């Protein structure tokens, strides 16, 4: 089963990469971009027996550094996107 883990920087944590992307967008003439935050998307192909709690443990133990990052788990059944 496909599961997605979104890892994002916590609010208030400075994101130099997001800032650089923001500047680059402005440089390309895109106006109206108030802020940019860059994160990570990690796709896991999991055996159906792997439960939510175990995925959360994976996030806490490795996938996210909870000192600076938040994570969000999205199971394929929860949200099937048309382009997925």
């Amino acid at each position, binding site marked *: 089963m496909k599961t997605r883990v979104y890892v994002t920087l916590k609010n208030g*944590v*400075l994101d*130099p*990469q997001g800032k650089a992307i923001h500047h680059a967008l402005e440089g390309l003439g895109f106006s109206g971009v108030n802020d940019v935050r860059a994160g990570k998307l990690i796709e896991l192909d999991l055996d159906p027996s792997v439960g939510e709690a175990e995925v959360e443990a994976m996030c806490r133990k*490795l996938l996210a*550094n909870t*000192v*600076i990052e938040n994570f969000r788990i999205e199971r394929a059944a929860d949200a099937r996107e048309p382009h997925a």
Partner: protein
Amino acid sequence: MKSAVIVFPGSNCDRDLAVALEKTSGTAPLMVWHRETELPEGLDLVALPGGFSYGDYLRSGAMAARSPILGAVKAAADRGVAVLGICNGFQILTEAGLLPGALMRNSGLHYICREVPLKVENDRSAFTRRYRAGEEIVIPVAHHDGNYQADADTLDRLEGEGRVALRYSDRCNGSARDIAAILNERGNVLGMMPHPERMAEEAHGRTDGRRLFEGLLDALA
């Protein structure tokens, strides 16, 4: 002084660190592969070298911090053995939870490789006893992810407990409060971004880094 240098796939300062340790202490450190689950007996110092362990995949130091040997490194730190993490070693120590905070991308986004002026803040630890508080020293940095960040409470605690060992004098990489090196609560674990092993011999131009190893020799031998 009996020391060990941990070698991870992608470490690239392990041999420089071994040379610096051997030249100051007269004894070559034991090189320990990250897949080992136990450290050699009777160590005074465990050193985690600079480099790009696991290609900095996921986050700098993230994979190495979950290596089998880290369990033994944590146990050694708990017993009071000195643990030194330099550059990638510092990143590994924060990822492993042996030191608080995190090392993020440099605020200017560039990889920084140059000699930087540092102010010594703590001269009482085994690592810094050969320096004087307030003294300015010069040691090179070479990193992309050296921007030290922690929440305000953690930073206040580090400052209040005298656990900020070195501070950048030149706003190097965006680090909170210009922190370049920190100690754990007990004072036996030091993480630092600058590379003392690259400033340890006359041929390096200066020898400011050598005093760190000499201090360890005084304290541990």
